[in-house]
């Protein structure tokens, strides 16, 4: 089974994100970037499938600026076989990315597309669902466990009420949740060897997709600063405050 993993380059999860002074977005100049943590989990799952003999080839694809190549290299160092960069300087929104990925899927013909459930920059949680709709493939989101049997996958999903197990027919789009696995550290020798693995570059035009944005950002602002807490003397006082001050009960 050939597996395609879609990955995104985002501001590193340990960076304190700052809003640009003009409110148009967040500061990305000279900010450390990394692979989206959920994408990393998706890559790890694909590499484990390859190690278990379930996947025959793991191809990673990233849509974005030229420097997304660094993120692809990280995935190659973790064990993916080759990479594809869909290079675009446009601001890519979920629908555009889903369309680009559809183009890549048509070229590559994988049986499974793995991706993160969402990216920690915008937290859209849309791209996987849109891709499955565009392809008319099965989808399984928020996966915490994936097992393959003849022509289908058994996927355990994290839902609000607990866990849900579903079967989906292949080909399918599966999005990874936090507990699917713990991604490995790429070993230092593999980081050095990843340089020799191939990365193809293509453009939105090559895939016949118009990636221009459909949504416009009105304003980005800092969340309100957290107010200091208060100590209460008794349970009665707490209940009184929750009722009359916070008005939550």
């Amino acid at each position, binding site marked *: 089974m050939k597996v395609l993993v879609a990955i995104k380059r985002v501001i590193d999860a340990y960076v304190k994100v700052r809003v640009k002074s003009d409110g148009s977005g967040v500061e990305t100049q000279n900010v450390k970037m990394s692979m989206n943590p959920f994408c990393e989990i998706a890559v790890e799952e694909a590499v484990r499938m390859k190690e278990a003999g379930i996947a025959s080839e793991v191809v990673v694809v990233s849509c974005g600026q030229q420097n997304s190549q660094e993120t692809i290299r990280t995935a190659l160092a973790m064990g993916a076989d080759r990479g594809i960069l869909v290079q675009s300087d446009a601001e890519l929104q979920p629908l555009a990315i889903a369309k680009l990925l559809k183009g890549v899927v048509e070229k590559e013909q994988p049986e499974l597309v793995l991706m993160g459930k969402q990216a920690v920059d915008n937290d859209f949680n849309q791209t996987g669902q849109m891709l499955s709709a565009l392809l008319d493939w099965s989808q399984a989101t928020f996966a915490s466990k994936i097992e393959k049997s003849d022509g289908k996958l058994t996927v355990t999903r994290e839902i609000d009420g607990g866990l849900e197990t579903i079967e989906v027919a292949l080909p399918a789009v599966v999005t990874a949740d936090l507990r699917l696995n713990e991604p490995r550290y790429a070993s230092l020798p593999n*980081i050095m060897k990843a340089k020799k693995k191939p990365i193809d570059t293509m453009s939105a035009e090559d895939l016949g997709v118009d990636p221009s944005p459909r949504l416009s950002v009105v304003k980005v602002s800092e969340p309100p600063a957290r107010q200091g807490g208060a100590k209460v003397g008794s349970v009665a006082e707490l209940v009184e405050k929750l009722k009359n001050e916070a008005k939550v009960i």
Partner: protein
Amino acid sequence: MALDEDTLEQLLDTVRRFVRERLVPNEERVAEEDAIPAELVQEMAELGLFGLSVPQEYEGLGLTMSEEVKVAFELGRTSPAFRSLLGTNNGIGSQGIVLDGTEEQKHKYLPKLARGEIIGSFALTEPDSGSDASSLRTTARRDGDHYVLNGTKRFITNAPEAGLFTVMARTDTAQKGARGISAFLVEAGTPGLRLGKPDRKMGQRGAHTCDVIFEDCRVPAEQLLGGIEGQGFKTAMKVLDRGRLHISAVCVGVAERLIEDALSYAIERKQFGQPIAEFQLIQAMLADSRTEAYAARSMVLDAARRRDAGETVTTEASCCKLFASEMVGRVADRAVQIHGGAGYIADYGVERFYRDVRLFRLYEGTSQIQQLVIARNMIREHSQ
């Protein structure tokens, strides 16, 4: 071959992340148990951390000195005990073979050292021979196609864990000085090789040293390093030369970690109604520490770059070791001071670092020995 910028950045990033996520959370446990958990050793080996300085043809990473010190800056940001375990395979425990070993010796040992399958130790110091290393007394007498070793080595890092010892011993007892000394590769378990009890140290718990005792220990002649007698002291000095830059870089890493910890504490801790970081006397300590750490970092990077360019950097490496090891001592002292009473209490970890860094001024050449090396080279250069 030097790495391109992206690959190096990714490599450093991985080490940084491993240190932050896997090593830092285990610092206290390692100190408490006086051992590094086996699974962490395994992870360190899988990551490739034992083979930083072993050439690529022997399965190491073959980093340049500039690259290696950058990795060492990162490794310095956690308990020195972790670095100590992988330090010998990257330094004194492997470099003798890398620099002067025969092709067979390299093939036999370097891949295993690079993979962390065996730990390499370096046995130079003896009970009566420390700074005056060329006066060592351990002997190696030729007997047919073997050498017979007799003597005691002291304070040998990683000896309890070691699979291979690079041992300096006197093959020519008529030669009292450096020229009578040869280096041998002695495998653990060789009959006649015995270990003393682990030393009880001031700090760096989790890293171990002990005596290594040779009693009629028969070593096959092909274990003579490089196959030539009388070269052992030269090899030892070359090995220590390279190691000085690595140790200096570790000192910089530890200092930067301590500065960060002290700064966070100073911002959080309030006295007289304000964070202690607002007090100028605290600020002076932070600023002095930052300045000195930056100076040491710059020195190390400069010396490493020059060494990669083919310059002889014996003097510069000693300058780095002298300054960086003394610097981290001052920084650790200030970090304790900024923490106040908490700095003396084990829960905060600062007192542990304070004890840990004391070693850097002592081993691989004391500060006084570095001063002697620097000044002697200055005088020699002047008269040339």
